[in-house]
């Protein structure tokens, strides 16, 4: 689904991505993990065309990123923090995105009911709580039944009920052939969702493989400890 080859990016003197190669398989949930500053966010933003790489290429399905903007019609993106224009309502935002996508697809409004968002959608965003905004953020990512979901810390700020509802939706999306790329600081959550793990250190992929193999390789029973072992080895190396 996604082919990243030799991706390189500097921010000033900071070398954030160092000839990063990554292949993400279709129909699977891939977790991007790594220490702070490893380049996770930059990688995700490059997939969306928000960051222009210095070198290297990204192919999503059959389109090169940055060649044509239409590939983004197949992507649902849930950013980590989102600040919507204060005086717009959830419905305004849905309408805006629908216009921008010119979407002919029937919208997936299941999350409106699941999150009980109905009445909140007509209020201006500024009157809504942080959690409710995050629910709208999730709703917008799933709205157009994208083939590829890019989720940056999707459950941050959600209560346990909403968080588990969202996780169900992520797994449901995979169930119908969707590809999911996500990051999270909550390892138990990734353990629940991820099929594959890409471990980033210093702008490179230090490990990519299935969650099972990673645990097996590091001889640990859960992802958190497996990652800890990887990080310790990374520092030693």
């Amino acid at each position, binding site marked *: 689904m996604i082919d990243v080859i030799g991706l390189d990016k500097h921010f000033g003197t900071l070398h954030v991505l160092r000839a990063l190669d990554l292949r993400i398989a279709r129909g699977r949930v891939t977790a991007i993990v790594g220490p702070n500053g490893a380049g996770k966010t930059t990688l995700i933003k490059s997939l969306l065309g928000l960051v222009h790489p210095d070198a290297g290429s990204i192919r999503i399905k059959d389109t090169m990123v940055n060649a044509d903007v239409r*590939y983004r019609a197949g992507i649902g993106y849930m950013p980590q923090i989102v600040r919507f224009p204060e005086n717009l309502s959830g419905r305004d935002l849905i309408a805006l995105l629908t216009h921008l996508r010119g979407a002919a697809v029937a919208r997936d409004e299941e999350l409106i009911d699941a999150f009980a968002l109905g009445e909140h959608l007509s209020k201006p965003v500024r009157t809504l709580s942080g959690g409710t905004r995050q629910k709208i953020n999730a709703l917008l990512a799933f709205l157009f039944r994208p083939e590829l979901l890019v989720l940056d810390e999707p459950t941050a700020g959600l209560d346990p009920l909403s968080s588990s509802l969202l996780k169900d939706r992520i797994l449901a999306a995979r169930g119908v052939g969707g590809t999911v790329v996500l990051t999270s600081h909550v390892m138990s959550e990734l353990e629940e969702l991820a099929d594959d793990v890409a471990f980033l250190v210093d702008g490179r992929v230090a490990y990519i493989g299935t969650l099972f193999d990673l645990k097996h390789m590091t001889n640990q029973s859960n992802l958190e400890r497996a990652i800890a072992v990887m990080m310790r080895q990374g520092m030693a190396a």
Partner: protein
Amino acid sequence: MTTILKVTGYGVRNLVRSRWLLLYAFFFLASAEGLLRFSSDGTKALLSLSSVVLFVVPLVSVVFGTVYLYNAREFTEMLLAQPVRRSHLFAGLYLGLMLPLAIALGTGILIPFALRGLLRGADGGTLVILVFTGAALTAVFTALAFGIALRIEDRLRGVGAAIGIWLLFALFYDGLLLLLVALFADYPMEKPVLALVLANPVDLARVLLLLRFDLAALMGYTGAVFQQLFGGWTGSLLAATALTLWIAIPFACGQRRFRRKDF
């Protein structure tokens, strides 16, 4: 094209409901109303109102515009993740800010004049020019604001730069020009001064207005020079063209920056 219109539409919808914009419109309403009450005739009120517009519009446009784009940062990222072209998105964001500001200015000024039936005649013409000049200044300074917000990552420094730009064009420029003329009093200075007037959008707006009032000398040295060199249409046309360039060039630079930026 439709992307530009849609994004503009939602920007307008967002801002029209904003208290700040309401306050901005009310400020001009109150100024126009007050000046009309305390002046003996419409022309004098218009002259005072012109000074208010030349002073306040650049300040609010550049500062509010800079803060606006900083606040819209995360939302902009979200829009960029949609299948839209960056140049279209930029134009939409720009118009979505510039149009509500210009509309607030226009309605605030026009209502008191309209209520007194002063929209016709010579004053009416000047009023229209005042509104258009104010709108042009809004366009110039919001474009500059977007340029600042895209170039400077740090918000505090960005707002500082915005205020600096306003201070430069609205306050210091005329003083520096006078100083220059005083220093080179023995040389013919008309042409260099003219060139310097063209390089300041606030001066250009002032010239456009002053050529209507026949009172150039009352409003700064630059106005006087301009009127001396160009009366009537030539001057207006030249000033209007230069002002248009002052909108087009910062806009194009901002758009270029926006296309290449890493978010």
